[in-house]
């Protein structure tokens, strides 16, 4: 099949960028989207032009490295699918495909389709963990976790930190990402001791970098792991509770 590509090219963060157009004549429907870009890059190098930079690694939809806006949709047209798992059979012969990097204030463009998502790591650093230094753990089965709780926690923990939720959000908010981590840990019995300090620290850090949530719902639609927007409600509830709980703790320590 043939495709016509319009790809965002930008040499560096502060350099101006623009679209360039390319035609590919020999694309197999069994190729993944990234394999199609590999072919483009081979072709560009053969012509003496610099290949398109894009992040990718596992190509199995789990590392979260890849991600681009494809025809205005984060990770492209197929629901619940990261860019690397999108295949060309989902496009028509002769399709025009526009490819852009994630667009969000918190994600600066590094080059072409590659962006800096470091702000997501900073949210985790602020509190996205359970403090359990190595060696101090009790016997694993000493703490039963109801199956429904473990399953719900796992649903949230499936997040791959790709940033599609942020890119899809008209406000550039990272609520779905943050809520997924808050829910993963706050639902579990092991996560209870730090529950309210965690949610406060993570949300406060999130707000330093990202926009606000207006319950638009684009994040859930774009998420390659189909993480539910319900987790945002859970995070918001815990955040409100934290305002009281954490204040009481401060009063006690004074």
């Amino acid at each position: 099949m043939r495709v016509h590509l319009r790809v965002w090219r930008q040499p560096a963060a502060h350099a101006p960028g623009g679209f360039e157009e390319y035609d590919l004549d020999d694309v197999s429907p069994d190729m993944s989207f990234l394999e199609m870009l590999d072919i483009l890059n081979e072709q560009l190098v053969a012509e003496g032009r610099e290949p398109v930079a894009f992040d990718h690694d596992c190509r199995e939809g789990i590392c979260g490295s890849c991600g681009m806006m494809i025809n205005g949709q984060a990770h492209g047209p197929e629901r619940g699918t990261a860019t690397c798992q999108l295949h060309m059979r989902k496009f028509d012969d002769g399709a025009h495909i526009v490819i852009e990097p994630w667009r969000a204030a918190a994600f600066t463009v590094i080059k072409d389709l590659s962006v800096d998502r470091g702000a997501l790591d900073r949210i985790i650093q602020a509190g996205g963990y359970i403090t359990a230094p190595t060696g101090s753990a009790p016997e694993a089965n000493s703490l039963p976790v109801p199956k429904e709780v473990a399953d719900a926690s796992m649903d949230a923990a499936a997040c791959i930190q790709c940033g599609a939720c942020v890119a899809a959000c008209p406000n550039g908010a990272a609520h779905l990402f943050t809520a997924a981590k808050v829910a993963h840990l706050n639902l579990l019995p092991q996560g209870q001791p730090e529950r309210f300090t965690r949610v406060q620290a993570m949300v406060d850090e999130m707000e330093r970098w990202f926009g606000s949530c207006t319950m638009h719902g684009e994040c859930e639609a774009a998420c390659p792991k189909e993480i539910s927007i319900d987790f945002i409600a859970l995070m918001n509830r815990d955040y409100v509770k934290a305002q009281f709980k954490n204040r009481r703790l401060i009063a006690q320590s004074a």
Partner: protein
Amino acid sequence: MSDITLDAKIPDGPLADKWDNHRFEVKLVNPSNRRRFEIIVIGTGLAGASAAATLGELGYRVKAFFFHDSPRRAHSIAAQGGINAAKNYKNDGDSIQRLFYDTIKGGDYRSREANTYRLAQVSVEIIDQCVAQGVPFAREYGGLLDNRSFGGAQVSRTFYARGQTGQQLLLGAYQALERQVHLGNVQQYNRSEMLDLVVKDGRAVGVVVRDLLTGQVRSHSAHAVVLATGGYGNVFFLSTNAKASNATAIWRAHRRGALFANPCYTQIHPTCIPASDEFQSKLVLMSESLRNDGRVWVPKEFGDERPPNLIPEEDRDYFLERRYPAFGNLVPRDVASRAIKREVDAGRGVGPLKNGVYLDFGDAITRLGRSVIAERYGNLFQMYERITGEDPYVVPMRIYPAVHYTMGGLWVDYNLMSNVPGLYVIGEANFADQGANRLGASALMQGLADGYFILPNTISDYLAGLLGTAPVPTDDPAFTAAEAEVEERVRSLLAVNGRYTVDHFHRELGKIMWDNCGMARSEESLKKALSEIPSLREEFHRDVRVLGDDRSLNQSLEKAGRVSDFLELAELICTDALHREESCGGHFRVEHQTEDGEALRDDEHFAYVGAWEFSGVGSPPELHKEPLEFEFVHLAQRSYK
């Protein structure tokens, strides 16, 4: 010739007491002195992230380097099926002794008894640790942990988090690491690739790192260097490894004197999605856990063109169940891979390219219902559907073996230190615990055992002797010379400006390796590979085309450096495979097989670790042998019948 003697430093005493005795004997660093020591960790997969986090918790000052944008992208994240531990929660006869025995037998008796036993001992602590961190393992309705079975075992000892166990374990380690970053105990450097090891007066004193965004080449010094950079399966181009997984860190350390042990022990995983065309960029694994419920078969008749659901039971050959009744579909990976290859080579392959066999869930779906199968393997089925466009609930999966894991790696002693003092190697990057074949769900176990529990308890033995010394300053000639070499190498890759892309050479190398040093190897094929690799390497350095500059993100340049190292490593793999005149585990020499086509070891001549010393590109490496002594297990022909 060099005078290296390989001392594995295995502690005395009964097998079960060695680790305890050893922990009592190692020198310690007291808590207030730990902040005087700096440790560099390269790589943040399961082994690296767990090590960096734990060393930070202990109070050491740690610098963690990784080439991804976030530590959580490391390829451990893609491990699907599970992690083994000798908890015996299922009351089905498991024990530390049995996990030890299964692992050493699964490795075809080519690993060290003491290391493997320690791995089995530590396995139970890993599960405790991960649960405490909030890893959402699968649970029974009563809230207790669930298990499933993996290849090479007759017990259920595998803990799992749906089909994303590696992801969840890595997130646990990553979150522990980010906590240490927040506390200031660990400094992390993302998009930073180690391009050389710095050795001074015979000790590892630091590394040279290239910032992938700015191209800046910088040195970092420390009291000890830990490599946790994974395996080298991408030398085959097509593998289940992530695209950027590479051997550069361990290869550069090898060039600086670290011995490379058993490079020919590479694992071909039986259940991967067959290649669909020549543009294929990588192969995708379908978890071994699928063999719990999936049955492997081919049509009995050659050229049977009927769709699988129209082929009746009596016309199907469930060849694993037929040949290995005791273990059935759950034979170890090397055994399953060879059996599948035999069917496809014999012309009974299925699919448009006749390059696969069926993995059929029909029986399981009838027996358990679609929803149970969806709960166990839902994300794997979805992944399969995305890639092939076929629905595995209806049409059997097609699978074929692919390169997956490398048991070989840098040689380390019982402390996980290489022969270069101060250089530690953990996880898949070392050679130690898996022998000639790794059992499923044991890689996660080894990575975390090394990172959480073993290295943090052994590294003090070396550091204690350095108390009161500062790291070598990075303006030392040892550092400036290494930096200059790195910069020269980068410049020379850009300067060639030849005709072919980096991927072109990588593909060619992969083809040579797969055809001649893949699932079946012979003297003839290996000699062929050894004649072809050097000329491909020369052609690469004469005719590769890397565009762009070295002062901004340049992914072709990164790849070029890695492929250039693969082109050197490939020769060592084939050299090792040629010298090992026996078949064992993943290393199958067609000249050495039993009457029914199983691997035939030669314990009299090859019960040793083959550790190679670098002597220059293109010049024959020198072999050092560490004899494997078996005091506690009886060497036997492996049988899964």
